[in-house]
């Protein structure tokens, strides 16, 4: 914690905000408190478009979440709808890999998923917030069953290879110790009258009472070994019944170790607006959503269609595509209007008859690297040996995350972990590896957290998003500068074409962003269509 964070310059509001967010540095503090901006999803209930102009048609490019929401709603309004999809399946990044699936990445490396029945990983999105109302709405509508996604598990681990001798720590103890020491420090500051200039005596009394409870401080406002702290951070020997279970209190870790280890960072994600519990996941994998949409839309979706040209004039839109399943036979689809959800990484390479503002916007957004690795083990050792039921372990190792399955608890068979979810340099390096190397590396790194890995590992699969043939990246990275200059142009209707997708939202990489962008786009397109026909 920076020196000035406890200095006299803070207002009470800032002080309390800091307590509430456990911020550990000025930057983190700012980032976390910016959650004050948070508002619910822009989804305002089921879309209700009025009747479409007679005979009007819409061509939708891409059968991901945005494209299929658009198709569903536009068909309902009476439009003639056709969807062109590059893949042989629907969903786009909404995708689940299960045993028997085959995935060929850019460069030609093929992987066969060898997971046992019922086991899976979601290479793309994997969790839904309780306030992602659009996604929840369509899951309910389409009969996609949801179950809890466990974002926070106090029994899971936080790990810094350069702290605590590389030994993983329990989320529970790190959280308790961090909170306890912060509370003790603030109490000390109050007792030393360091807060007198900014916090009234009355409020300081209330603050002290709250710190004592929140930080598990003893009667002297110390965070120390004893019943109070052990009730939060856990015991060396937990209390039980009878003669054999006299509790033994645990020793809190010192402040310098807690702060110096940076492990407090492992607690912050779950505080984030979009990741606060309750979260959900579809039973059977995130791909169940895409599959449900595909069933609903049926023959409206044309698969294996690679778009190679997008043209428009005052009468309509013409999209030329190659059927990749039929030796690239070339065809052209026509419609009055077009909703284009193709990722900008790809769209920027497709000849497209649009104005300079939209063309410039399409070219302004680089795509992020990200990698996920799924690992199958002979048994669920994280449950059997360590009582970790779902949730996420965070580490400074390149794998960044180990996520335990939030389903199938206590089952005696095999289990699949998310063995890595990588960003930054680690993602770039893993992308540059062969799929087999990625899996081997994930096992190697994971072994430093769970020594059971080598003996229990069976097989794995990896998806590096920059090697994905249908996205060429994970998601669009809007800078504030680019957004200020191009975002409105990207979303604006150009003639008869409107874009939708996570790239046309303020929620990068979230399905809710893709969904709400589609709802917004078709509403505007519909009004344009009504205007044009009247």
């Amino acid at each position: 914690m920076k020196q000035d964070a406890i200095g006299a310059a803070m207002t009470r509001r800032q002080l309390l905000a800091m307590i509430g967010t456990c911020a550990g540095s000025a930057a983190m503090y700012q980032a976390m408190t910016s959650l004050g901006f948070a508002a619910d999803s822009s989804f305002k209930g089921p879309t209700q478009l009025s009747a479409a102009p007679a005979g009007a048609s819409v061509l939708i490019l891409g059968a991901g979440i945005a494209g299929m929401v658009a198709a569903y709603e536009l068909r309902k309004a009476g439009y003639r709808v056709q969807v062109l999809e590059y893949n042989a399946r629907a969903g786009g990044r909404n995708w689940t890999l299960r045993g028997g699936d085959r995935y060929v990445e850019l460069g030609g490396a093929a992987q066969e998923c060898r997971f046992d029945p019922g086991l899976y990983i979601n290479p793309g999105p994997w969790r839904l917030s309780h306030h992602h109302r659009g996604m929840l709405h369509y899951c309910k509508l389409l009969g996609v069953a949801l179950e809890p996604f466990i974002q926070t598990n106090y029994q899971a681990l936080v790990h810094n290879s350069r702290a605590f001798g590389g030994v993983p720590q329990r989320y529970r103890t790190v959280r308790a110790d961090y909170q306890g020491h912060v509370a003790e420090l603030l109490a000390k500051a109050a007792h030393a009258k360091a807060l007198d200039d900014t916090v009234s005596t009355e409020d300081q009394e209330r603050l002290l009472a709250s710190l004592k409870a929140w930080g598990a401080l003893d009667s002297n406002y110390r965070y120390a070994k004893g019943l109070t702290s052990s009730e939060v951070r856990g015991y060396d020997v937990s209390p039980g019944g009878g003669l054999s279970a006299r509790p033994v209190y645990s020793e809190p870790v010192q402040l310098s170790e807690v702060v110096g280890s940076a492990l407090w960072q492992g607690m912050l994600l779950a505080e984030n607006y979009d990741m606060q519990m309750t979260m959900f996941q579809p039973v059977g994998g995130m791909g169940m959503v895409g599959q449900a949409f595909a069933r609903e839309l049926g023959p409206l979706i044309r698969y294996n269609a690679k778009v190679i040209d997008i043209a428009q004039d005052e009468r309509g839109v013409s999209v030329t595509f190659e059927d990749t399943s039929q030796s690239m036979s070339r065809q052209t689809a026509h419609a009055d209007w077009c909703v284009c959800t193709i990722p900008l990484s790809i769209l920027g390479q497709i000849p497209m008859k649009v104005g300079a503002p939209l063309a410039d916007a399409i070219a302004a957004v680089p795509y992020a690297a990200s990698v996920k690795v799924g690992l199958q083990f002979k048994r669920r050792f994280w449950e059997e040996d360590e009582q970790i039921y779902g949730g996420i372990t965070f580490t400074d190792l390149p794998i960044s995350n180990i996520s335990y399955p939030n389903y199938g608890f206590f089952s005696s068979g095999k289990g699949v972990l998310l063995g890595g979810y990588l960003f930054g340099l680690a993602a770039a390096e893993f992308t540059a590896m062969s799929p087999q190397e990625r899996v081997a590396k994930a096992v190697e790194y994971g072994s430093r957290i769970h020594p059971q890995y080598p003996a229990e590992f069976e097989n794995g699969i990896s998806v590096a998003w920059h090697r994905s043939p249908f996205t060429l990246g994970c998601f669009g990275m809007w800078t504030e500068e680019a957004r200020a200059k191009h975002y409105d142009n990207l979303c604006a209707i150009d003639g008869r074409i409107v874009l939708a997708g996570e790239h046309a939202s303020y929620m990068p990489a979230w399905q809710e962003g893709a969904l709400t962008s589609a709802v917004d786009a078709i509403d505007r397109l519909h009004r344009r269509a009504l205007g044009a026909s009247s």
Partner: protein
Amino acid sequence: MTGVAHLRKPAVRVVMAALLALAAGSAQPDTSKGVFGLFGVGHLESTSGEVIYQQICQGCHMPDGRGAAGAGRYPALAGDRALLSAQFMAVTLIEGRRDMPAFGGKSQEGFSYMVPTLDDEQIAAVTNYVRTHFGNQFKGTISAAEVKALRRPH
């Protein structure tokens, strides 16, 4: 909370929200202050053009430098006439180009944790490597000082 909410802009918030990167660039290892981050972007140590290519570039441009094609494509660097100009390649690395991220450490607010950065020496090294491998035999080299001169002032 509104009193402090203006400190960060909404665009950064949603980026934070969408991803695992926890500190939006602030968590990069900073050993000089005795603090190191759990979730830093990481920094590639090597100054070998070959190593940099193999650890970053080949993710998209492929180990043989021939690129790849799916719904879209990654351009081949092998035989790419645009590489006639070492400056062009170096600027592309620094600034990024369309869907390709900027590796020059150009401020990408909210995304500093997403893209590894290469320094002048590394950019020069990998530029010189690509222009003389994969069948490329372009004349001349670029130095770190020349790369530095290509950077736009912030």
